[in-house]
Every structure is written in C-alpha cells, then in structure tokens.
C-alpha cells in the first residue's frame, strides 16, 4: 500500500517551474531516493512533500489523505513528517537530549527520557545527552539530527542530502547504518542525493530527476540495467552509447558485430539506434575474435578501467582485475556479455 503518492505535481517560484509534472508513489516501509545533478529540482520536490513549498498543479497524498494541491496546503507541522536537513540544523542553544525531545515535548518527561535514551542507543551515542551540538563531530551531529527527526515516530522521514557534508569513508558506513536503523524502526523514508552509491546503499526505489522532470522511478537495479532514458544511463554508472542499425531480423548491427536481444522494436528495420554498453558487459578475452586497442586506462584499485578503440574508431569502456595489466596500444580481444540490449533512438539528445 502506498504511503506517499505524488500525482503530476508542478512546483515553481513565480514563472519558473522547478518541478515539472512529477508522479511517483512510495510504499509503507520502503526507502525511496531522489537522484539527480544539483539544480534538478530534487530538493524542491522534497520540500514540497514536507509542505514548505506549495504545488502549482497536481496533488500529494500522504497515507490516503490529500496534503498538497493548488487549493489546499496542510502546514508542515500538521503532516507528521520528519526531516533531516542537509546542514543538520540542530538547535545550537539546546543540548543533544533537548534537541531529540524537541518534537515530543507534549509527552511526560519520563516518556521523553525513555525515548531519548532509546534513540541515543540506536544511533550509538549513549551518554551524549547533556552535550551541546558544537561539541560533536560531523558524523555525530548527523546521527543526532536523525534521532531528533525519528523521535516523534513520523509516518514519513525526509532526508535532504543527509551525508553530503561528511567525508567519503564515513558516508558509506553511515548510509548502511541508517538503512538498518530505518528498517528497524519501520520508517518509510525518502532521501535526496546526487551520489548514486549512497542511493544504491539505501534505497528500495529510486528516481532520477533532470531539469525538474522525473525520468524514471524504479528499483536501483532497474535504473542501472534497464534505463528508460539515455540521461539515466548517463547518470547511473559508466557506459558508452554505440551507434548501430536495426536489421531485418530484429537484431542490431554495431561495430561490435551483430547483437540480439528482446527489446529491439518491431518494424524498425534500418533505423539507427544507440546501444548502451556498460563496462561490465564486456570481458577482456584474448582468444576472442573481436579485436580492440587499449587507448587509455585508469587505476580503480581492485580493477583497471580501460578505454578501448574498435577498428572503426568507436570507443568502449571495460574493466579488468588490476593484476591483469595491459599497456597502452596493446591489442586485446573482447568477449561480450550483453544479456539484454538497452536501445535508445539514435542521436536522442533532448529530454
């Protein structure tokens, strides 16, 4: 059952449309994620769900109840939503315990104390209650911000780039921790990020946004392997688009040879298409007939990311374990591992 449902909403300031015709829904207990480059409207969308921005068109429903429409705007404090802000926004004049209990001040003080201690334990910061926010490190402030948002047991938790101000190492471990915590508390959450690793680590469902549009709302696996738009393919993971032509038997003629798959459209013989080729679709195999030349390589720790050039000059990316080194200019064989073809109309450059 969907807890959050957005139906064709527009959000904007004045004449400027920031969020353009977005629809998606999030099931109770799931963690959703909005991905996209900065300025794509994902934070504005989050704020519209929180009730800080009115919608110009469409509707937002929260647990079957209409909360936002052009005619109606339920104020943020009446929505039962929790929010973790990008800069945490802890109240600097209150202690950690006072920050956490801020949203549950109508409860009795013993209830408050119990909840605060429980949350502090959940986020692994027992005994930090009497400290002030400025005495905590960035990662600790992050956890307190999360605990504060969770304290009133919101129906939906919104997280705005929650890990962006932390360093890379902390970011990954915290993302996994937070996911475990949200699952434990059975919280439905929606987070905004521009970091796909973070999205993969946390999300059950994710959407890629670009210029205010939601290009695709899918599982992370689907976004990676079945991108619905070449911009999604671009944004998620590495990959190149290889120009090809559809043959009469619904296969695709490419510089890599004749490829076949289930998604080739019918009656499109002779049409030019772009085929998405991910590095993990290609294996370097010196016995293979398909020959290519190494033109660039980048060390990635466990593996090298090679750029190889085919005979006709088109280039591909492929990976190989890093103890398996090739020099620039070396000729290698390529074996294809393309289970399913991802095709886009050729030269499709517009959203």
């Amino acid at each position, binding site marked *: 059952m969907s807890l959050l449902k957005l139906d064709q909403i527009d959000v904007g300031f004045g004449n400027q449309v920031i969020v353009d015709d977005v629809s998606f829904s999030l099931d109770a207990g799931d963690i959703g994620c909005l991905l996209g480059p900065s300025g794509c409207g994902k934070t504005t969308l989050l704020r519209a769900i*929180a009730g800080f921005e009115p919608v110009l068109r469409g509707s937002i429903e929260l647990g079957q109840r209409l909360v936002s429409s052009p005619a109606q705007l339920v104020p943020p404090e009446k929505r039962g939503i929790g929010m973790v*802000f990008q*800069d945490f*926004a802890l109240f*600097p*004049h209150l202690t950690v315990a006072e920050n956490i209990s801020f949203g549950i001040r109508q409860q009795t003080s013993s209830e408050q104390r119990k909840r605060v201690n429980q949350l502090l334990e959940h986020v692994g910061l027992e005994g930090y209650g009497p400290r002030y926010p400025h005495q905590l490190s960035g990662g600790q402030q992050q956890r307190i911000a999360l605990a504060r948002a969770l304290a009133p047991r919101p129906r939906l938790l919104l997280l705005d780039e929650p890990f962006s101000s932390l360093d890379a190492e902390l970011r990954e471990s915290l993302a996994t921790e937070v996911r475990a915590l949200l699952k434990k508390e059975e919280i439905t959450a929606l987070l905004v990020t521009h970091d796909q690793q973070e999205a993969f680590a946390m999300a059950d469902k994710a959407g890629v946004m670009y210029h205010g549009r939601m290009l695709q709302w899918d599982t992370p696996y689907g976004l990676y392997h079945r991108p619905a738009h070449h911009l999604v393919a671009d944004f998620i993971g590495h990959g190149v688009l290889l120009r090809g032509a559809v043959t009469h038997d619904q296969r695709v003629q490419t510089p890599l040879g004749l490829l076949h798959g289930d998604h080739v459209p019918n009656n499109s013989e002779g049409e030019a298409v772009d085929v998405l080729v991910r590095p993990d679709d290609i294996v370097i195999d010196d016995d293979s007939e398909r020959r290519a030349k190494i033109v660039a390589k980048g060390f990635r720790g466990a593996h090298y990311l090679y750029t190889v050039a085919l005979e006709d000059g088109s280039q591909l990316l492929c990976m190989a374990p890093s103890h398996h080194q090739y020099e620039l200019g070396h000729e290698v064989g390529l074996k294809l591992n393309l289970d399913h073809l991802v095709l886009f109309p050729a030269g499709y450059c517009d959203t």
Partner: protein
Amino acid sequence: MAPETSSSYRFHQSLRQRALSRLRAWSVPAVAVLICLPLLVIVAGFFIGLFSPEQRDTLAHLGRYVISEYVRHTIILMVGVGLLVAILGVTTAWLTTACNFPGVRWLRWALLLPLAMPAYITAYTYSGMLSFEGPVQLVVRSLTGLQFGEYYFPEIRSLAGAIFILSFVLFPYVYLITRAAFIEQSRAAIEAGRTLGLGPWQSFFRVGLPMARPAIATGVTLALMETLADYGTVHFFGVTTFTTGIFRTWYGMGDPIGALQLASILLSAVVVLMLVERISRRQSKYHHAGRSQQPARPLQLSRSKAWLAFSWCFVPVLVGFLLPALQLLFWSADQLHVWLDPSFWNLVKNSLVLATVAAIITVIVALWLCYGKRRTPTKLIRSSVGFASLGYAIPGVVIAVGVMLPLAWLDHRIINVSEALFGINPGLLLSGTIFALLFAYLVRFLSISVQTVDSGLAQIRTAMDESGRILGLTSRQILSRIHFPLLRTSLITAGILVFVDVLKELPATLILRPFNFNTLAVRAYEMAGDERLAEAGPAALMIVIAGLIPVILLSKAMSARQQAMHEPVMAAPKAEEIYEPVKA
C-alpha cells in the same frame, strides 16, 4: 659581481631586516601601552586616592552625598534603555527579516537612520518640540483652549526623557546585530522546528529568538556602553550620572583626583559590560546552525497585519530620525544669519580639519598594528592589539580625564626644563594644544579602524602573498600591487568612520579642546545650554548630515549581503557540464 648578489650586501640586508622585524615586534606592544596610558592613569588614580587619607575623606564625602545618586540614576537609565532597545531592536529586526509587507525594503535601511543622530542633538530637538512654546503644546492648547498649568504635560527633561531619547537613538545597534543573526540562521533551523510540530509563531519564540540570544546580548551591551558614555543628553536633561559627576567634580570642585576616582568606578561598570559582550560574541560563534545556504522565505502578511507591522517599524524611524531631522531643518531654515556668519564657517573648518587629521592618524596606527599582528602573530602582539582597541567601550569623559592629567604633568616638566635651560616658557605644549585632543580621539576610535583594517587584511590570504613572491614580486611590490589595491576600500571606510565619530564626539572635545577652539559639536552644546536651541540648529544639522555617511555605508553592506544570499541558485546547468562526456 652585481651588488645584489655579493655576500656582504646580503649580510647587511639580513641585519637590516632583522632590526626591522625587531622594531615591529616591539613597536606594537609599545603603541598599546601608550594608548592604554589614560586607562592606566585612571586605575592608578583610584589607588592613589585610596592610600591618601585626604582623598579618602573626599571619596567618603562623595560616596555619602553624590555617588549613591549617580549609581541609582545610572542603574535606572541602563535598565530602562536596555529593555527598550531590546524590544525595539528585536521586534523590528524580526519583522523586517521574516515578514514581507509593503515598505519593508525601505524600512530595512531606514531603521538604521537614528544612528546618524547623536543622542544629545535628538535631545535638543525634543526639548524644543515639547517645550511650552513648542509645536506640540501649542497644538494641545489651541485644541483644548487650556492655559499653561491647566493641563498635565510630561516633562522631557527628566530621567524618563533620557531613557526615551537614548533608546530611540541606540536601538539600531540591537536591530543591526540581531537582524544579521536572523539572516544567518539558516531557514533549516526554523523549518526543522516546523517539521517537529511548531507553528510559524511558535518556531520564532522557541527557535529563532533563543538562537539569536547572543546577538541580542551583544547589541544591548553596545547600546548600554553608549548609554554609560553619554554626557550631552543627561547633562542637558539635568540627570546626574557618572559622566556629569566627573565634569562637576573636575570643573565645579576643581578636584582632579576625585574625578579620577569617579572615572574609575564608571570604568569598572564598563569592564563588566565588556566581559558580557565578549562572552556573548564567543557564544554566537556556536550559534551558527551549520552553513546557512538559504534564508527562510519571508511570511506574506495579510493587509491588516501588514499595516500593523509597517507602523510598528515606522514609529522608531519617525521618533528616532524623521521628527528630529525635520525640527533641525526647520531651525536651520529659520536661522539664516548663522549660515552667513563667517565664524560659523570657521567652526566647520575647525571640525573638518580636526576630524580629517584624527582619521589619518588613527588609520595609520591601525595599519601598523594590524600588519604587526599579521607578520608576527605572537600572543604578546595579539593581546597588545586587543588592549589598544579597548577604547571603544570607554566613555569619552573617562578618556579625557586620563589624557589630561599625565599630559599636564609632562607639560609642567617641559616648562621647568625649558626655563632652566633656555629661559623660555613654551606654554602647555601637549595638554594646551590640539595634541591632547588628537591623542584622546586615537584612544577612543582606534578600535573602529583596527576592526575595519583587520577584516580587510583577513581577506588577503597569505597564499596571495606567497603566490606574489613566487611570481617574482619583492615584499614592497606585494604591498603596492596586491595589498594596497585590496585594502583601499577598507582604509577609506575606516577613515570615514573615524571622521564622522570625531565630528559627533562631545565630552572629550569639551574637556580637551584648546582655549577658544570650537567645533560644531561644542557650538551646538553651548547654544543648547544657553537655551538658544534654534541657533544650535545649523551646527547640529551639519553633524547629522555627516552622520548619514556611515549609515549609507552600513546599509549598502547590509543589502549586498542580503543580495548574495538571495542570488538564485536555480539557473539550470547545461547537461555537458554535469555529466562526464560519454565517448561514443
């Protein structure tokens, strides 16, 4: 071999540099001691008084008859002014930051206008407006037909009147600092309150206001320091406080040590305020809720509420600036003969020359101190600069007393020596000339220029110096080609701020000015003291016009900041700038 590369040249050069850097290292503490001299004299005066039985008697006498009254009046004044400036400053700051109503853009800078009025000048205009023959009572009489004495009319020349005047002149300190704090609170803090179940007004009282507390405390202490330092207003209104007491003890009773002792009591009150200010400033550092990216979106007020908000913010502008300014304009237009009088223009010339010279000296000393701190930021040097900037909190009267006594003593030594050696009496070379005045201004206003120059220098990161060196500039070229162009605005700003403050300054000028040397401020004071209020108009008007300059600078800086924060970040970036281009 070129002289630059010879080893002996290099040896001499390094010696010279070492001597220079040693000079720099010692000059900063030396300047600091010199500038703190008046304060040291005050503190010393207190102990001298304690140890001489004669002085103890006078002190006991003072204590019995006057000090308790001074203390009482000063406390009432501070409590009253403190409360009123906090209410006026915080409410106007909040309304103009968090709400949107017609006229709010204008009010944002108009609320700074009262800063252009020295309190004593506002006091003159109100006692003119509210006097028996003033416009207000005339209207009351013509409306009611009552005669003098038949109706009650509040007396402005009273303690309550002084509280009223000082509050409406000084509340912009609170407004300015609190508003900056409100702007810097990221909207996230208020919105976090909303998602945790607070309504818009609740989130102001429970989140916005507590977070701005240190800023409010800073603003109120600054206003209270000005209140303690005020002489013109309380003297004119006949309220006896420490500043008037020092004057009376010095001139009326000819008791310099007694004046010193009163000054030292006043000084200790100032020290307490300074501590409060330091602590609250330090706290406000923690009260930034992370990086504030976007200010909260202002609340759109409904028609009736917008009217209410506008009037609430407009009244302080009206009372603190527009009415007094109109009264001054009226007096000035009325007193045409004053404008045509060459002696008036002589006053203008005196004031301008004095303020310009003081500004130049102050900026040069500030530059020297700030560079010393930048080059060798040792603990000694940093605390020296800190001590040298204490003057902003010290009332002009206290500084004047502290300057006068040592300079007079020194003058008498000089006269003795000179008479013994050459048989000539050179007169009072230091205490009887403009020198004493310039020194007092330096002590009082150095901190303004140190602050401005310091923040200017802070923008020139050392990496800039270093990249200049790498690109082949000598250290002198770095000064002329990198530092000077970058510092120019700060230096001019510092100069202007000191210039205007010197023009407005009254009590120190009154005590220290050479015989028959008059300035605009002194003339306005004398005219008002003689009950020739209208004739004080032209001089006061000139001071207020000059006082408008820093207000304009401030409001420009404020709107630049607001603009930087409102800059739209929505401009859609191009796809190819975001994505790694795919090679296909």
